[in-house]
């Protein structure tokens, strides 16, 4: 099993993030969820909220609105209608 997760966050205007990460927490429409490497295939709609991306010891936070998360063995893709990086 891979020990990192390939994560990409894309909005219609651009690709905000693409790379290998340790964990992603996202606001699912039916409850927040976390994705770790090797997660089972899963798809959900997202509600408005924040996506936390854990890379090594650091964290990146994105504000997303209206989107979808798609988990496949290849990784996690979040398609967000609107996404902005939150400066911590």
């Amino acid at each position: 099993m891979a020990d990192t997760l390939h994560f990409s966050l894309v909005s219609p205007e651009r690709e905000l993030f693409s790379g290998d990460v340790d964990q992603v927490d996202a606001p699912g429409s039916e409850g927040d969820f976390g994705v770790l490497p090797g997660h089972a295939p899963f798809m959900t709609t997202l509600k408005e909220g924040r996506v936390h991306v854990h890379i090594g010891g650091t964290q990146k936070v994105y504000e997303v609105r209206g989107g979808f998360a798609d988990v496949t063995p290849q990784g996690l893709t979040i398609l967000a209608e609107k996404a902005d990086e939150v400066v911590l």
Partner: protein
Amino acid sequence: MASVKDLKTRITSVSSTQKITKAMQMVAAAKLRRARDAAESARPYATRMAAVIANLAAGVSGDGAPRMLVGTGSQQRELIVVATADKGLAGGFNGSIVRAARDYIGAQIAAGRDVSVLPVGRKARDQLKRLFGDRYIATPEAGVPSLARAQEVSDLITARFEAGETDVVTLFYNRFASVVSQVPTRQQLIPAQVAGSAPTIDLKGAGYEYEPDETTILAALLPRNLTTQILAAMLENQAGFFAAQMAAMDNATRNAGEMIASLKLIMNRTRQAQITKELIEIISGAEAL
């Protein structure tokens, strides 16, 4: 024959036109770069969206499937979206889309279909007005492509589809093949075309889990996909427009240069002829004395 003064005036006027076309060409070149970047950065979203939809569509079928995916079961009423630019001075750019759309609309009407038209962009609106003006459902401008603009258009389409006023939705735009070639393209929006070429995702034996269920996700995703496709078309149009404008203005600048050269030649000949004539007059006058 025009006098030297007339020719001078014409040369001045042609060179000021040349200055304008040269400036427009350079502006278009700069904007083209930006428009291409925008079109390229929108691509990952569209590609992923297509892959996700293809994946979902494979699992959804029968009566529960959203009508945007499978259609209404009829082909009778068609909404044709024609996307052009707002402005001209770009060679055959707008004309080629309008011509393709006009032929198609004509054929659909001849086939007895119930056709309505949604022109996006001032040029489409003006050029199709005489023939199909009474079929317009709205006339949004193209403006600068943005998600909000695309949303506006896709809302118009969705509203009409949800109200049961149309069965099929077709889009016309110019695909940006390269800087020198923009291809008028027809694309079916509803029922959604599931890209057969979209990479299917290898699940390695695991089953997909959906939250909420597949049909709900698909129903939410399809209108977004519509917006994405329209945005993509608008971005391609924008890039194509600037490329066409750049080429047209480059031509115009060159033509103006040729014209100035030939006018200068005529002007110099005229002046020389005049001087020669005056000299002959003086010499023959002197000889007569």
